[in-house]
C-alpha cells in the first residue's frame, strides 16, 4: 500500500522539474536583460533595473508568491471592474509559481551576470568594435561565451536554490512532489517517511546538478587554465 503512495510522490517529480526549468528559463532571460540594463548608458534603465533587483531581493520568496498569486489577481480584477468589465481574474498555481520564481531568481541572475559581464576585459569589446561587429553580434559572439564561464559558479548556486524553492509552490496548491508527500503523509499517518522521501528527491536533484555543472565548469575553463600557466 505504501508503494502506491511512493510512486505517486515520485511521479510528481516531473511537475517539480518542469516548474523548475520554466522558472529557470524565465530567470535567465530576465537576468540577462536586467544585467544589460544595469550596465547600459541610459540612466532610466539603470535605475529601473537597480530598483527591481533590490526590491525583489528584499522580499521573502513566500511573500512574493502570495503577492503574485493572491494580490495581483485581486488588483487586476478590481481594475477590470472599475473599467466596467465583470470578470474575475485568477492565476493557475503553476503559472503564478513560475512567474514568481522567474521574477525572484531573475534578480539574483542579474547580479551574477552583471558581475560576469564586468569581468570581461574591456579590450575585447574595443577590438570587436574595431572589427566593425554590430552590437548584437558583439553580445552573441564575444560577451555571451565568456559570460557563460564567468557566471557558471553563481548560476549553479542560483539554480540549486531555485530547484529547492519550487517546494513553496505546493503551498499554492500545485501538485508537485511536496504536495503529494503531504497528501501521502496525511493519508498513511507516516509523515516522517514521506517528507524524508521528498527530501531525498530534492537532494538527488542537487547531487545530479552539481555533478553535471561541475563538469560543464571544467569544460569552459579548459582554455583559461592553459593560458594562466
Amino acid at each position, binding site marked *: 500500500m505504501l508503494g502506491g503512495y511512493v510512486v505517486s510522490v515520485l511521479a510528481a517529480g516531473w511537475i517539480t522539474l518542469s516548474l523548475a526549468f520554466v522558472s529557470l528559463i524565465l530567470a535567465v532571460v530576465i537576468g540577462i536583460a536586467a544585467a544589460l540594463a544595469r550596465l547600459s548608458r541610459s540612466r532610466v534603465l539603470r535605475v529601473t533595473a537597480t530598483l527591481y533587483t533590490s526590491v525583489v531581493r528584499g522580499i*521573502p520568496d513566500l511573500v512574493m508568491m*502570495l503577492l503574485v498569486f493572491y494580490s495581483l*489577481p485581486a488588483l487586476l480584477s478590481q481594475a477590470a471592474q472599475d473599467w466596467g468589465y465583470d470578470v474575475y481574474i485568477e492565476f493557475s498555481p503553476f503559472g503564478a509559481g513560475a512567474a514568481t520564481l522567474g521574477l525572484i531568481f531573475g534578480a539574483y541572475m542579474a547580479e551574477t551576470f552583471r558581475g560576469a559581464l564586468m569581468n570581461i576585459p574591456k579590450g575585447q569589446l574595443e577590438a570587436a568594435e574595431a572589427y566593425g561587429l554590430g552590437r548584437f553580434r558583439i553580445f552573441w559572439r564575444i560577451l555571451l561565451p565568456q559570460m557563460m564561464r564567468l557566471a557558471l559558479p553563481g548560476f549553479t548556486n542560483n539554480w540549486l536554490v531555485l530547484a*529547492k524553492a519550487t517546494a513553496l509552490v505546493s503551498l499554492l496548491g500545485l501538485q508537485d512532489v511536496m504536495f503529494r508527500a503531504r497528501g501521502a503523509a496525511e493519508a498513511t499517518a507516516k509523515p*516522517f517517511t514521506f517528507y524524508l522521501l521528498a*527530501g531525498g528527491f*530534492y537532494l538527488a536533484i542537487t547531487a545530479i546538478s552539481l555533478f553535471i555543472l561541475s563538469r560543464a565548469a571544467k569544460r569552459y575553463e579548459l582554455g583559461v587554465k592553459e593560458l594562466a600557466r
Partner: protein
Amino acid sequence: MNWDIIAENLGFYAQGAKLTVILTVVSLAISFVVAMPLALGRNSHNAFLRNAIALYTLVFRGTPLLVQLFLIYYGLAQFDLVRESLLWPWLSSALVCVILTFVLNTTAYTTEIFAGSLRHLPVGEIEAARAYGMSPFTRARRILLPAMLTRSLTLYGNETVMMLHATSLASTVTLLEVTGVARNIALNHYIMFEPYVTAAAIYLVLTLVLVLLFQFAQHRWAGYLQARL
C-alpha cells in the same frame, strides 16, 4: 482600497514583526556559535570529522527548508519513542520546532561560508602563529577565527538576509509572524492585496536595516581587507 483595515490591525503587524525579529536573531545567534567549531572541523585533518560535517551541510543545503520544517514538526510524531520521551512537550511546540529547523538549516550554510573563508586565509598567517609557538586553541582564538569572520562578512550578511526571509515559512506551521499575520488578515477580511503588500514592505525595511548593519560592520572590521589605491 481597504487601507483602514490595515491601519486597524497595525498592532498585529507589530507583534508579527517582533516574532519575525526574535526568530531571526535567536536562530542566527545559536547558529553563529555552533558554526565556528564546525567550520574548524570541516577543515580538520581528521577525515571522519571532516566528512561527517560535509555530509551534514550537504543534506541541509540540498533539501528545501519547507521539507526540513515539515519533517521535524509533523514527521517526528510518527515515532512512539519520540512521543513518549521527556522531550515531547518541547518537540510538539511549533515555536521550538521552527527554531530547531532554522538553526539546523542556517548552521549548515554558515559553516560552509566560514569554512570557505578559512581555506582562503594566507598560509603565512598560520605559519607565523605556529612559529610563535601558539597552541592550537590559541591559534584558533587569536588568528583563525578573527580572520575567518572578517573575511566572511559579505557572504554572512547575505545569509542573515536569507534567514530573515526564511522565517516567513514559520507561518506554514501556525506561527503568527509577519506573513502569518498578513495571511490571517487576508482570510478574515476577504482582502487579498493590502495585507501582503504591507508584509512585503515590513520585510523590505527589515532587510534594509540588516544590509546597513552589515555595511557598517564591513567598514568597521573588514576595512583592512579592502584594496586601497
